């Protein structure tokens, strides 16, 4: 598997969509620096009112998000929460932080291990 496959695959899957409603208000560039063996692999995700394009390149962006590649792959699988990772310092966000809040909405939810058993009967 080529590096960043999970990450790029995630965005490429979004790409063909005409419009991602959760990003409908966003027109910005977010650069993801995927760090592996200490070296960043740079990806520029451009959002234009919900339409997404992904290019493997560096350059200026409105918001830069930097973390280990492994963490990004977990984010794309829903195994990691972006905001907790920011608080932990595992994901470092520079620039317009609001963009990170916006873009993290498109990551999937965690795999559900168990279903809630509905209905706890009253004690009387």
């Amino acid at each position, binding site marked *: 598997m080529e590096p960043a496959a999970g990450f790029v695959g995630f965005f490429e899957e979004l790409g063909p969509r005409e419009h991602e409603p959760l990003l409908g208000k966003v027109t910005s560039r977010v650069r993801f620096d995927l760090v592996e063996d200490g070296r960043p692999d740079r990806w520029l995700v451009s959002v234009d009112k919900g339409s997404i394009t992904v290019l493997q390149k560096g350059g200026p962006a409105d918001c830069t998000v930097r973390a280990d590649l492994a963490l990004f792959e977990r984010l794309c699988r829903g195994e990691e929460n972006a905001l907790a990772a920011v608080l932990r310092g595992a994901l*470092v966000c520079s620039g317009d932080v609001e963009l990170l809040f916006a873009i993290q909405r498109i990551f999937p939810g965690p795999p559900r291990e168990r279903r809630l058993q509905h*209905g706890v009967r009253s*004690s009387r």
Partner: protein
Amino acid sequence: MTENQVKILEGNTFVVSDGRGDIEASRTDPTGLFSFDTRFLSIWVLTINGERLTPLSVDDLQYFETRFFLVPGTGTVYVDAKLSVIRQRSVGNGFHEELTILNHDDKAVELLIRLDAGCDFADLFEVKDALKKKGAYATRLEHGRLVLSYRRETFSRSTTISSSQPCTLDEHGLTFRVELGPHGSWSTGLDVVTAVLGAGDGGEEGPSLAWQARRLPTNMARNLERWLDQAPRLECDWEPLKTTYRRSLVDLAALRFSPISAGRHSLPAAGLPWFMTMFGRDSILTSLQALPFAPELAATTLRELGLRQGTRVDDFRDEDPGRILHEMRYGELTAFEERPHSPYYGCADATPLFVVLLDEYERWTGDIRLVRELELEARAALRWIDEYADLQGNGYVAYQRRNEETGLENQCWKDSWDSISYRDGTLPGFPRATCELQGYAYDAKVRGARLARLAWDDPTWAESLERQAADLKRRFNRDFWVEEGEYFAIALDADGRRVDSLTSNNGHLLWSGIVDTAKAAAVVQQLMSDRLFSGWGVRTLAVGDGRYNPIGYHVGTIWPFDNSFIAWGLRRYGFKAEAARVAAGILEAAEFFDGRLPEAFGGYPRSMTKYPVQYPTACSPQAWSTGAPLLLLRTMLGLEPVGEHLLVDPALPGTIGRLELLDIPGRWDRVDAFARGRVETSRPDPDH
């Protein structure tokens, strides 16, 4: 030492110290310098020649600034006042302390001045629950500064302490050797700076999260002045109301909180100092209360909650698509997912209330742009009601936590363990469909329909929402009505049975408009009966019900915020005199607390105690208690936006006399409201 604690704050940075300005926190003692839910200083003790000091007085200059006047020694017999010590402290990015020592003697003195410093970097949750730390501490002396730090994997927090005057540094503090001439003085500036650092975050790449956490607040004194200037002016014959009004405005200023993403805009946090963070319910209800006074709070609340609206199904966080958050936290336990507050969504009322606030905000301000901007969020919130909240499968909003370890059991405003009970005191199982949630859902649908026509160009959906609302109202008035008592049950249990205690929630139902007009008079009679109305306000639970306790948190105490919404509900159904009685009771109680209403006070009958008995809580002021007098002013004056105009229809307690509220902001620009007190509310003479 709780009695003598001094608290100052700015945003979510605050200092809690003793009356000398000292901090000596233990693992569980809640003093210290806190920022982003982390303690950045747990020891800060001043000694002079090895002696602790004694406070003479403390001046609370502003909510962000205080001054301690001290003398050396802790002698119990007399104070040797040859020296005065002044510590003036203001909160910003950490805190700044100006330490001044005055020699009143005509002889020179040699002083060994020592400040002990240390930090445990506890998470607020750890302070509450006394948990053990998992990371490593380090202390360094560098470039004349003392740096205390803590690291756990990539999580890193540090505190840097420096002085403007030369000193000797060691790992446990700062020492000054000073010779002070006759009548001489000496002073130094001490800076305690907090830092939130992530992996590889050197700050060189422009504004980062850490950098934004370091933002220096703008001129705080001028900011407060401008805030007070922009609020409507109140003139009144009854002096205590003026005091309460001013107190509310200043406290609301202190409670403003700017989330990192909001730039310079702010929204109301829940309570000071422990709840200086975004809470869905508290921020929304306080914004509603403050709408006629500071409508910009509502705009920020809506934007920031919208930005953090749930998008996935996450059992740990009790998150669903469309759900509005309950609480956001920034500390270590949240960072390592040992607590779900990143953010936590376990709250069943904030989502419908989000739509209610959006509509009410537009009615006051005419800001249709924000309504258009938040269309997607409002639609998702309304969809949540139908698709995710119907846990009993009967078309009612209900809650049951999916995070059974650290999630919340009761996801309504009465969130303590025993708040929802049958008349006989037994507790229902889960899911629980509490009654006020149905009222909020009804109101959200009705208001959502108005917005769909006005701003979203979707009359078909508006009609469908209205049909749903009408159906909900019809079913609710049948299923929740307790026939023998003539009031609404507090909830339906999982078997569809009425949880039949008599509670203040009936007032919220009036506010929402879900009550059949034919039933309103009976409901009002219950609210104003001796079982619920104490003379000061409406109790959370009625006297005579199984769990009633006049000092039980949600089972007998009186909550000023609750009463402000009850008064609004009474007005909505035309019960003006009753609304005035509730307003009079709560505002008269405020006088006993110097204008700062507590979160709750005892449910004892007014005729018995003559004064309201405060319920002890850790946070004061509380945002929605601060907002209560504001909403009560609105209800007494009968302020109601109608089209482009503000309708004024006062029903004022006779005890208030003349009342003028000038320059009320809104879509009408600024208007004035005048009233004269005519409603007999029979305030008993406190001397008899």
